[in-house]
């Protein structure tokens, strides 16, 4: 407890040194709202509540940034290894000036919920469900443990909103998860379902790891990787019906789902 307190104190002191030149400026926050809509809302949602792609930025505690100065760095340079791009490189148009970035930070600060929401669910029970009855770990991995067919979920609780996680469990096909992102390629690969029949007549069902016009890289349901040339296949069928089963309330109660969300959030916030 003492250690956590020291860390928090450290963060507070750090933040005090690194405040935005526009901190608390309501006019800057309003200008920042429009900048936010233009530059950030695609992933973080129109109200900064998270748009299913990026984290909810109204949370007071963020995973990658604490001080305004850190936030400035993240907006300027992106976060390596994540979908967060450097300023001006997302292809959505113009990069922002320093002043505009500070305006956005002023806007985000104005939207923050001061008291972090209490976790509704029971994380410990959520973990039991994840690795047990709910069968999540058959396809999803967290901290090195679990399956490989679905997206890895260690960080998902820190980068997705509760609503987005619930939606992806209840309606997995509504918005397919992003997989591999290639440098300068506009769209990431999505977790599309695929069924192929090889020249020898063998049927393979799985998800696409990657695909282009001439080849496809598939992971089948038993985690075997298949590297295939399309013109050598007898048939090739893709589907935007997610390989993940629809977890309706009959399969997974609202309470159990909240517990799983609590587990994912506890891991993702680390």
């Amino acid at each position, binding site marked *: 407890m003492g250690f956590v307190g020291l860390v928090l104190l450290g963060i507070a002191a750090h933040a005090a040194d690194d405040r935005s030149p526009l901190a608390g400026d309501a006019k800057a926050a309003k*200008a920042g*709202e*429009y900048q936010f*809509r*233009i530059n950030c*809302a*695609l992933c973080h949602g*129109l109200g900064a509540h998270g748009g299913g792609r990026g984290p909810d930025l109204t949370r007071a505690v963020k995973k990658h940034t604490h001080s305004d100065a850190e936030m400035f760095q993240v907006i300027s340079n992106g976060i390596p290894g994540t979908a967060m791009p450097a300023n*001006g*490189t997302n*292809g*959505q*148009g*113009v*990069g*922002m*000036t320093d002043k*505009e970035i500070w305006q956005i930070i002023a806007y985000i600060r104005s939207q923050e919920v001061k008291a972090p929401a209490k976790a509704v669910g029971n994380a410990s029970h959520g973990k039991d469900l994840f690795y047990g009855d709910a069968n999540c770990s058959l396809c999803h991995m967290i901290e090195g443990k679990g399956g490989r067919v679905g997206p890895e979920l260690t960080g998902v609780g820190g980068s997705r909103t509760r609503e987005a996680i619930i939606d992806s469990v209840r309606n997995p096909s509504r*918005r397919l998860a992003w997989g591999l992102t*290639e*440098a*300068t*390629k*506009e*769209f990431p690969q*999505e977790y599309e379902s695929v069924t192929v029949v090889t020249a020898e007549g063998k049927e393979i069902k799985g998800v696409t790891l990657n*695909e*282009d*016009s*001439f080849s496809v890289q598939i992971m089948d349901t038993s985690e075997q990787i298949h590297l295939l040339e399309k013109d050598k296949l007898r048939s090739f069928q893709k589907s*935007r019906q997610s390989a993940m089963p629809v977890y309706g309330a009959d399969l997974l109660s609202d309470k159990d789902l909240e517990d799983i969300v609590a587990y994912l959030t506890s891991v993702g916030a680390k």
Partner: protein
Amino acid sequence: MTMRGAGKIQTGERTRKSFYRRGHGGVPRRAPRNLVSLLAICLACVLFASPVGGQVTFERLVNSAKEPQNWMTYSGDYSGKRFSALDQINRTNVHSLVAKWVYQTGATGKLETSPLVVDGILYATAQDDRAFALDAGTGRPIWMYQRQLPGDIRPCCGRVNRGLAILGDKVFLGTLDAHVIALDAKTGNVVWDVVAADYRTGHSFTVAPLAVKDLVVIGISGGEYGVRGFIDAYDAATGERKWRFYTVPGPDEPGHESWEGDSWKTGGAPAWNTGTYDPVTNQIFWPTGNPAPSNRGEGRAGDNLYSNSLLALNADTGKMNWYFQFTKHDEHDWDATQVPVMIDAGGKHLIAQADRNGFFYVIDRTSGKLISATAYGKITWSDTKDAEGRPVANNQSSPTLEGRTVCPGALGTTNFMAPTYDPQTALFYVTARDQCDIFSTAPQPYEAGHAYYGSAYFPSEEAKPYRGFLKAIDPTTGQVKWKFEHASPTWSGVLSTAGGLVFTGDAEGNFIAFDAALGKAVWHFQTGGAVYAAPMAFAVDGKEYVAIAAGSAVYAFGLP
């Protein structure tokens, strides 16, 4: 004789064989050592009336069809067809095409360059205003230039450049800090450097200039910063500005009434893609981009001339002969900055332009009158046409605060990627995408040097997956003859060749050859990086090459 390429200076010969000969002026590798050599060269000059020493005259540019081994303008010729008369690589042997060399630019981001090749030397550009010359047969660099850019330039959409122009013994580069620069073609040394506009107010150049007569013609970028757009012409010898055409008319000029109040001062209408030139009528055809702010019409009531228009300008004076506006009072960022391709068909002199707004337009280039406009992609913004046949916006297309879905999205059905017209198939090939965007207003005051959109836009999830195509359009009917669906939308341009082939690239890094008539992919190569550039073809020492920039490198392919 110390000239590489057998020393035979080829010109004037129309036989196919001569297309593949290195030469046409040739490249002296060492100084001639005796009088005999000099005499031999001079005799060749007299016999073939050939320009020597890499001089690219206006006459050579006009008659570029006579030297298909070279690619001397952005689109390969003045008509904008991006068609190569070379046919050594063709449908029967394309399956055996191999990479002959790769040149790594060392640049990151989007590589949009379309190289030039003259007499065995390839000239191209890369991000951050790099320019370089390579031995086109080996890919080995001869010189490299990189501009020292200020730290606070305002490139709208990447630190990109689409290529050079060449005239005389110079190549010409427009820079991201809005300078126009002449480089010595043999050394890359700066010959002259002029400022076209202040980069701090959002002006920049990304376009490949066009050399016409003794002028270097170039259009400004900055529609996302509320610049007042213009097209400039500079004296190729000195850099002196000879004329400027403002694409937004000032007070007392016709068209000024199409702007509300002072909105013309920040009206945009940039000119950031390379136009074409008709030597017969001495007219430059140059397209313009979106009005500013790009996604909000409030405050600039009117048609907003000459945004999103095709302009016919007198090459000597820059005076406008006619204009045709594709999208009036645009609120969706639908720049008309696509290459206006000159086509002659049925005794008519036409321009075909596949526009970003989703319609394929055919225009009489003598009068500027519209002949046809046909949708070639997914459209929701227009369902009627006016008396002249021009598509008219419906009342369901303006951005709203809560967001409104419109097709095509802001990136358009096509964009800057160069199309091609193949005279052999009489088809127009263009990269197209189906994507709808949600346009949501986000009003911004104008502030010099700051982004000036007025609306947010992002892809509509309902329209997923976003689809990308290569489409072959019959210009006489506007109908899509065939289409190939890419794995995802691509930004690659398209090349057609006399070998019955069409070449393009994809977002997954493939460079692909198609049967031009059937649309069947007949060859492909994985370059390892997404393609944002346009392919071109050339020949050195009797061998045909097809080149494309992909990832951060330039690739040249040939037969084994």
